[in-house]
């Protein structure tokens, strides 16, 4: 028989205002096994923990129940308390009478009743608890960063500087990501390339960093400290070691009909290409879908023109297998599809562009060499209209529900840069709200209004069309004066919503990391664990977790790196003992559990068993406790009841259910 202590927390007024804590103590006092019960204002405080420790010693307790907040909050705290008093930490159960009870009920009588029931269930479980011992696993001291934008680069640099080897896997031929496409950055207006490319070079030259460019993660197995990852290094048909990046081949390539992604397809590139001058690695890459040699077997001009002999049409995809202790997801974002908003005529008129396209037009290395031109006729514009919140903040099928966060600031930046460089151009911005929370952000936006005379109009645009003069007419509304606005303009720039990069679902699935309804990766706790995924060993960096600007991305990248370093600094990890186990006598080897296990933790062995004196060899399920996450899927799937979860055995669960239904 257990000797159980029950400790009811008030949580200040969080619990005590809705649950009669005295009544709870009174009600559970005489439950089977209970030999001590008390309540206290803050059980998690040092004094509260002291009460628990004293009671354990004084009453010689073998198990305790704490009626308090969610176990996600303080289970670890109270387990430690119990351990300090000499009790096995797995003899502690939490009855969640805050999130599951006081916070969601108004009526005190009802809430008290429910609190008593929850406490009884926990007591019933502790009665069947057995001491458990956690295992240990080794830590591979190497990190993987998925995505080579500013988030991934920063995380990799910080981990590498702390002395651990890091691999960056980047799907395009160069690292740099979206930031490499930007012209200037807010609110300081420094040139994006000037501050990014030194970091790219630093990453490339760092002795602890290895870059797999033009590569993708193919498969991930294993668990925190011990991930096994397959990386596909796509054939770029150019030998990375031989190519000097001289770019002779890219200039000579005759296949020039395809769009240049780096310039948002505003101009074309060859089939063999280096995305931009400062690419890292500075190595050419052949796009086999566009290459004449791959289509007809002829051409080969790049091969002939390469003095280094780097072109190799026979190169094949390569699979690299590597072990990692931690994984950082830094997959970033893309511009959402604005073709759904064709009231703005994006698909119909070349002078209607996205903000990212404007970045390329404004950039000296862009399709117009940095001169602001209308894409339709290459003429200098006289008027430009910016439209905010295209696809953000809506609740229809074509909108994102969230604010994309960066658009207000980059639009103020664009407006100011244009007015600075071309004072003859009139700039109008249609906005719903101007959102500028950030250091020096609002000051920046006010400068656009006050010093640069940018015309901010509060209201949306309903329709854009080409008028008789071949210019664009913008029909909108000024909500402050309650007037219709008709503006003739030369260019329209859409601040399109940003969304997580395509393919993030696939990566999240491989990592068993959760994503939200918008495909942003979910953090372990929105406030207190913002750079960790709920999946142990997986960390989040940059926009893959939610919209953010460059300073925020860099901060988060550093934070994720610290978490990785903290993990890699450990030689061994404690593993949860709450894993599944097959009862050899009951298992009939049917494979049902193997099929439902999301972690691939179950395999089968042929084993001799002694069943009531009868010896025979049977096929029996075996759980790899290092891989098992204790999710319990196998225990409910098992048709013969052979699977059980330590710490959450079928008997314990049924005892809880019985206590609730009593």
């Amino acid at each position, binding site marked *: 028989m257990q000797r159980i202590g029950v400790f009811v927390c008030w949580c200040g007024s969080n619990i005590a205002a809705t649950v009669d804590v005295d009544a709870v103590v009174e009600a559970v006092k005489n439950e089977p096994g209970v030999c001590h019960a008390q309540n206290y204002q803050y059980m998690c405080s040092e004094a509260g923990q002291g009460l628990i420790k004293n009671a354990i010693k004084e009453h010689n307790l073998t198990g305790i129940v704490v009626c308090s907040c969610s176990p996600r909050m303080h289970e670890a705290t109270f387990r430690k308390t119990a351990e300090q008093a000499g009790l096995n930490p797995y003899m502690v159960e939490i009855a969640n009478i805050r999130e599951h009870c006081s916070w969601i009920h108004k009526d005190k009588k009802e809430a008290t009743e429910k609190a008593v029931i929850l406490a009884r269930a926990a007591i019933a479980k502790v009665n069947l608890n057995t001491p458990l011992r956690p295992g240990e696993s080794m830590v591979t001291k190497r990190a993987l960063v998925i995505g080579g934008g500013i988030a991934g680069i920063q995380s990799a640099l910080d981990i590498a500087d702390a002395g651990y080897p890091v691999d960056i896997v980047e799907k395009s031929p160069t690292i740099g990501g979206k930031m490499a496409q930007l012209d200037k950055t807010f609110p300081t207006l420094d040139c994006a390339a000037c501050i990014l490319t030194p970091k790219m070079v630093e990453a490339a030259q760092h002795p602890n960093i290895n870059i797999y460019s033009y590569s993708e993660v193919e498969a991930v197995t294993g668990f925190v400290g011990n991930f096994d990852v397959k990386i596909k290094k796509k054939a770029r048909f150019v030998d990375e070691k031989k190519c000097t990046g001289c770019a002779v081949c890219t200039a000579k390539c005759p296949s020039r009909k395809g769009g240049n992604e780096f310039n948002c397809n505003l101009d074309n590139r060859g089939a063999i290409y280096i995305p931009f001058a400062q690419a890292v690695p500075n190595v050419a890459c052949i796009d086999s879908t566009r290459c004449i040699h791959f289509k007809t077997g002829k051409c080969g001009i790049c091969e002939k023109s390469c003095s280094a002999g780097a072109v190799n049409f026979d190169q094949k995809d390569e699979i690299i297998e590597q072990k990692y202790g931690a994984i950082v997801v830094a997959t970033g974002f893309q511009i959402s599809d604005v073709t759904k908003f064709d009231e703005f005529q994006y698909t119909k008129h070349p002078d209607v562009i996205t903000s990212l396209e404007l970045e390329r037009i404004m950039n000296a290395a862009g399709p117009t060499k940095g001169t602001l031109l209308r894409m339709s006729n290459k003429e200098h514009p006289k008027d430009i209209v910016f439209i905010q919140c295209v696809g953000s903040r809506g609740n229809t099928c074509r909108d994102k529900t969230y604010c994309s966060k960066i658009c207000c600031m980059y639009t103020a930046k664009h407006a100011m840069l244009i007015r600075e460089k071309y004072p003859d151009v009139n700039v109008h911005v249609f906005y*719903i709200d101007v959102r500028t929370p950030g250091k020096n952000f609002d000051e920046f936006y006010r400068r656009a209004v006050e010093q640069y005379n940018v015309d901010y109009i*509060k*209201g949306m645009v*309903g329709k854009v069309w080409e008028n008789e003069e071949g210019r664009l007419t913008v029909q909108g509304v000024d909500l402050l004066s309650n007037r*219709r606005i008709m503006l003739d303009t030369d260019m329209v720039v859409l601040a399109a919503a940003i969304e997580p990069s395509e393919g993030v679902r696939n990566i999240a699935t491989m990592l068993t990391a959760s994503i939200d309804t918008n495909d942003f990766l979910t953090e372990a706790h929105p406030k207190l664990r913002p750079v960790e995924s709920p999946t142990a060993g997986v960390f989040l960096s940059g926009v893959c977790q939610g919209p953010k600007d460059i300073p925020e991305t860099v901060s988060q990248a550093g934070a994720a790196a610290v978490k990785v370093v903290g993990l890699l600094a450990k030689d061994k990890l404690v593993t949860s003992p709450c894993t599944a186990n097959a009862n050899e006598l009951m298992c009939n080897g049917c494979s049902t559990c193997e099929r439902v296990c999301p972690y691939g933790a179950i395999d089968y062995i042929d084993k001799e068993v002694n069943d009531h004196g009868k010896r025979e060899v049977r096929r029996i399920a075996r759980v790899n406790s290092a891989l098992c996450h204790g999710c319990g899927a196998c225990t409910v799937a098992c048709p013969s009841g052979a699977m059980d979860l330590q710490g959450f055995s079928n008997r314990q669960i049924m005892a809880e259910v019985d206590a609730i239904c009593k």
Partner: protein
Amino acid sequence: MSEDIIAISGINPRQCMKCGKCSATCPAFEEMDIHPHQFASMVVEGRIDELLASESIWKCLSCFACVERCPRSVEPAKLIEAVRVSVLRERGGSFLSPDEIPAKLDPELPSQAIAAAFRKYRK
């Protein structure tokens, strides 16, 4: 009453974020005294009498441009229609009387226009 308008339209006007997309897109904007974006907030504020007396309810073309383009699913045309039917359902409330029709006819006018005018403007 606001509740009646909300019930007839089936729309929650509090979803409006006051972006003005409806008014920006409305082809009858210039003809209206109260503009589409104002309907949502005026229903919330309970200014129904002003809406009932508004010229706008007879100017709305039911072209559904605001319904399609509203990012918040407020679909102002439905609020406008709710106000319009509230007027029509009051005995005698109307905008078009049968006596006026003959003068408005011309040989090419489709019968659809007359049917629609009656549905929309006269009980």
